[in-house]
């Protein structure tokens, strides 16, 4: 008589056989002492593991909890951190200098050469002012909008490669 495999016994123990297989294993073990003994051996491994897990159960260390909360609490809003970044002298000074230069070149140096240069000056000035005072004008979407955006939209513009015609050029 064929014995059951350990694989069958393990799947049986975990309730992972289909009803027919399950019934067959059950029936076989009714009449086969060797397989019953092997099943008990498999079962005792599981019981051992569970007993070990119960015996060795640990509490969540309070340090872990504290570390999670301190990491969360120390987080700063991204908007605020970007504002403070703009207020920093390392950024603010060059920005101010750029505005001053733009104003200078825009009005007195480039000015006499004609209208377009004045416009350029205004443009620079305006641009710098805009960047200096409203640094987040690129921040149009909320995170929710970003999450709803389908990546497929960005893939619509697939590059269409025209079929290449290979012409045999076998001139001597």
């Amino acid at each position, binding site marked *: 008589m064929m014995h059951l495999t350990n694989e069958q016994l393990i799947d049986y123990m975990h309730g992972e056989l289909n009803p027919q297989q399950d019934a067959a294993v059950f029936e076989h073990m009714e009449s086969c002492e060797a397989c019953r003994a092997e099943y008990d*051996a498999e079962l005792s491994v599981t019981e051992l*593991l*569970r007993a070990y897990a119960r*015996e060795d159960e640990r509490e969540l260390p309070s340090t872990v909890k504290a570390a999670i909360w301190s990491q*969360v609490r120390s987080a700063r809003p991204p908007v605020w951190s970007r504002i403070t970044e703009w207020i920093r002298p390392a950024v603010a000074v060059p920005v101010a200098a750029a505005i001053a230069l733009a104003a200078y070149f825009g009005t007195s140096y480039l000015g006499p050469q004609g209208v377009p240069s004045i416009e350029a000056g205004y443009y620079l000035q305006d641009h710098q002012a805009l960047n200096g005072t409203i640094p987040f004008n690129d921040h149009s979407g909320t995170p929710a909008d970003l999450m709803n955006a389908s990546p497929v939209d960005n893939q619509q513009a697939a590059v269409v490669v025209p079929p290449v015609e290979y012409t045999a050029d076998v001139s001597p």
Partner: protein
Amino acid sequence: MGVPRKPIEPPTPEQAAFLERAIEQYGKATYNFAYRLTQNEADARDLTQEAFIRVYRAWRSFQPGTSFLSWIYRIVTNLHRDELRRKKGRYQEGLPEDNAPQEFSGQRPLAVTPIEDYVEGQLSEPLSRSLEQLSADQRQVIVLADIEEYSYQEIAEIMGCSIGTVRSRLHRARALLRRLLQRQQQK
């Protein structure tokens, strides 16, 4: 680990409440799961912390009605795998000796009884030493199937593999574990 790669944002009140509840209800289970996978406290602490930070960040993606524990176990499992890859070399799909096919059809010797000799209270030592010798995948599948009592389907989702892989991994892991335990017993 420990230091997140992306900056995290401060909590909204609901988000804080979500995290609070998650730690309260599942912190202990998560830590124990992490400990079983890593077999050491320092790594388990790091894994648990990082897993809850991930939960915190992605809290909106949690679907009420689904199992939170499965979700965080999946996170822990992935983090653990990444961590092992980083300490490369230690991560193996299976120990070499584990690959021998098992043949039990036909004549079977009467089962060598395993572990009856282990008395409650003394089993931590030999068992944890045996578990340490399994590969990470083998430990994961044993912990999920035999300690946490998940179905193969659920384990497949947590570990991100097929049910067939879960099945064969569990068979091999258990066969190897039994051999290791018997070896310990003989000492």
